[in-house]
């Protein structure tokens, strides 16, 4: 499959770049680059580049994929410092293995690699990558500063999801479109698709946190302990007229063992259903972008991402149709 070829090239390039790093920051980056996960972001670059009439240069497309994945790795390394996460992609995180300071520097090294690779691919690429990185960094701050805010508005939540997650997915689509030299109208549709897809991804990812069977390798309920309340919890808090859920979440003595109780309360209050419906709104935006895009194989390829996202994040229930 072409996509598999692309992903393989992306990983090869990432590992090659990671190995070029000075030894002091190399191990943490090489380790993550070699366990690339699903490469959702890199493959989205290729899916968007496929809209070009003559296809795109596979080598350059793979390097663009490496750029977005490296940017993603940089943010993972730093998120693990912020969340004090011990596990990443099923193995001990860089933060756990090397400590906060070295993990932070490894993240910075990754960011620098992404910047150099982007610069080699062209000034427009550098600029798009830097804009997305700035959005990501701001989203990181919005996410932390709202810790323990049981009254965070959904608008504020959506803003942070857009910066923290949406901007990077948008970048994937913008880079793919640029590589395929698509006309501005099509590029704009793809950018709109990317942002909404990213926000939907974040919302559904939050929903997964409430499903203990769906998450392996992530400590149960860690976000609740950190005071970082995902979309279902926030939606539930908005409906929590007795204040029971807020009181539970703000209890300084909240422990990992309280996870099931929090989960049950969030679901009872309708938080999970409400968050899924918010995600559906975003997916509807994606779908409306799809209807305006030129039909063909590329369109089918992109539509498959929506199916994939629904399948991987709603394993047991079918999504609401509203």
């Amino acid at each position, binding site marked *: 499959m072409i996509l598999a070829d692309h992903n393989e090239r992306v990983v090869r390039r990432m590992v090659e770049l990671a190995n070029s790093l000075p030894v002091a920051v190399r191990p943490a980056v090489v380790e993550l680059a070699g366990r690339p996960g699903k490469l959702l972001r890199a493959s989205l670059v290729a899916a968007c580049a496929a809209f070009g009439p003559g296809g795109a240069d596979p080598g350059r497309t793979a390097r663009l994929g490496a750029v977005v994945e490296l940017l993603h790795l940089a943010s993972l390394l730093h998120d693990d410092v912020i969340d004090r996460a011990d596990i990443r992609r099923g193995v001990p995180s860089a933060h756990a293995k090397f400590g906060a300071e070295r993990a*932070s520097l490894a993240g910075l090294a990754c960011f*620098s690699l992404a910047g*150099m690779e982007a610069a080699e691919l062209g000034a427009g690429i550098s600029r798009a990558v*830097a804009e997305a*990185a700035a959005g990501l960094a701001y989203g990181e701050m919005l996410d932390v*500063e709202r*810790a323990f805010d049981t009254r965070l508005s959904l608008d504020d939540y959506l803003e942070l999801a857009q910066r923290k997650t949406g901007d990077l997915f948008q970048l994937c689509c913008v880079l793919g479109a640029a590589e395929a030299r698509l006309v501005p109208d099509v590029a704009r549709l793809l950018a709109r698709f990317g942002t909404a897809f990213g926000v939907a991804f974040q919302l559904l990812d939050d929903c997964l946190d409430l499903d203990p069977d769906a998450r392996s390798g992530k400590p149960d309920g860690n976000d609740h302990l950190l005071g970082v309340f995902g979309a279902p919890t926030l939606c539930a808090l908005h409906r929590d007229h007795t204040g029971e859920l807020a009181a539970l979440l703000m209890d300084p003595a909240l422990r990992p063992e309280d996870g099931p109780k929090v989960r049950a309360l969030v679901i009872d209050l309708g938080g999970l259903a409400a968050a899924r419906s918010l995600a559906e709104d975003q997916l509807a935006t994606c779908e409306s972008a799809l209807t305006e895009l030129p039909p063909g194989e590329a369109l089918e390829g992109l539509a498959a991402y929506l199916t994939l996202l629904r399948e991987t994040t709603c394993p047991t229930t079918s999504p609401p149709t509203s």
Partner: protein
Amino acid sequence: MPDDISTDVLIVGAGPAGATTALALARRGIRPLLVGPLVPPGESHDVLLSGPAVRALTLLDAIPRLPILKIDSAELRCGDGRPRGLAVTGSAACSDGALRGGLIRAATDAGATHLNAKATEIVLLPGGTHMVELSSGVTVTARHIVMATGAPSGSPNGTAVAQRLTGVRLDESIVMRLPAPATSDPRETPVFVWVTPSSEDSVVTVGTAQLGVQDVDLMARALRDLAATDPRFHDAIPIGVPHSGPLSSTFSPEAAVVNDRLHIGDAAGLANPFTGEGIGGAVESGLLAADCIADFVDDPLSAASAYRSRLAASYVGYFETARHAARRYHLTWRVLSATADSDRPFFAKARRTVLLPEGISSLTGTERMELPSAIGAVLAPFLAACDEIGVATIRGEWPFLARLLIAADSSPHERLRPAVPFYAALAAAGRPPSPEYAALGSAIELATLGAMVFLGPGGTPTESRGVDWSSTSVVLAGDFLLAQATRLVAVHAPDIAWSFSDWLGELAALRAERLDPGSGTPAEEVFSALLEFPARIGAQLGGADSDVVETLREYGRLAGRVFLHAEDMLSLRGRPTRLDATRTALAEGRVSDIDPAMPVAGALREAQASCGRASAAALAAVVAVPDETATHILRAFITALAPAPVCC
């Protein structure tokens, strides 16, 4: 019509802001009318005058009329951290009543007229003249109106209270407290407590302020907290009743001019939202208003627009986050509390910048470069442009960091900053640097600040639930600054985007190597790389020959070494360093190369020798640079960077 007065400038409100404006206008030959009731003599409390405010009032020759008490140090305690002594050179305490009275007398002696009355109605007439009715029945027409009427009582966003106490001794030192947040709720707002001595023996004033509350008994809480945590306050007895007033930190440049009237001080919402301190803003905005009016006496609209833009440039950092304001204050408060015991340079700077009344004037050290005025005249606009771009880049999203970038009260071209060697290197080939490179200069400075965030010892991890604010704020601030810097480069100097990213990677790797005890990488490598880049890139962009580029690279590396050895020297002498670090902090952070076990005298000798060697080599390297302006700046930079050695 004897009851009607016509004047160029009418100032409404005769508090510190209004009286300062009147005095400054009178010194510039404009005789304003100052209208406002006198505060009845009697009970008063003391207020704190920041270093910049004292300097400004000294220039206006007002200080001799004020019974001030000089203050040289502050004891700051954030959260549950240990108390820290900080130098607050040039500050003073003064009784509020004496300050108001003294400033009004100084203004009237200088040529202003004061009327003990209130303005009851102000009307803007067609044609731009203002007509003002006074409580005394007099009608005034004025071309300019300055509003110094204090915090609007209708829409304050907090409360400030002051109370005198007796039975407390503080020797020319102020006490400042920022208690830790009591809950996890990000909507909780900070409470700040300060105590200043007075010219009366054993009498002090306690002040406290909080945003977001209107009627909580702040003073009782502040006194309880002081008595519980500080033995000096065990026997404190309150004198009189607390003076309570609205606190207004709602400043926006757009709202500083309303109906063509210039609002100053508290009337413009200029109180520091963390500390409630308002005198600094009162004096500074009063001076700005006076300058703008004097520059455009015949053109009130131009005066107003100049005032608005100069205020916007001066008041960076506290006021810009309308939507997220409460949470962003809270974030900053969390960070200050959690890092109270950290000596990491970034946190030390943040403490000073956000909380000290002097603001950031002492951030980059007191050393100034000495440059011929002709060179200063070309360098200053470039560096001011760097400041402007840097501030504009980050103020909207993270205003407190923007305060770290600038020093509002000093000349931008005299400070020691990476954009200085960058400018000189741009000029090295003999062509005057294009102003377009200011964006790159700003990116270099943002990145240097970002790199500084990643320097120093990591925080001690917290075990409880919740956020580890110390490590978290390092990552957040570092990522934010470096991302913004990279964005500036990508937009304004795409040709060097690769080199810029390469530089960031090099800094990360050198710092990581330095953390490894076995690597043998000296700390000075990190600092060499920090200043090598601006010198190298500047020379390349300025079109210098390859041997001159090489010379400037070497100069940059040496300048980085001088900087680090200067840190060693200053910390060993117990002096404030540019990174606000101590010897212990430098050693623990693996920032210094000096063996922490070495006795001070020997360590100091070694640091001085290293510093001397590096600066001599840097000065020698400069000889190979052809352009005279460039060599002047490069030399002045090194000379100011290297502290004078102490003689045995």
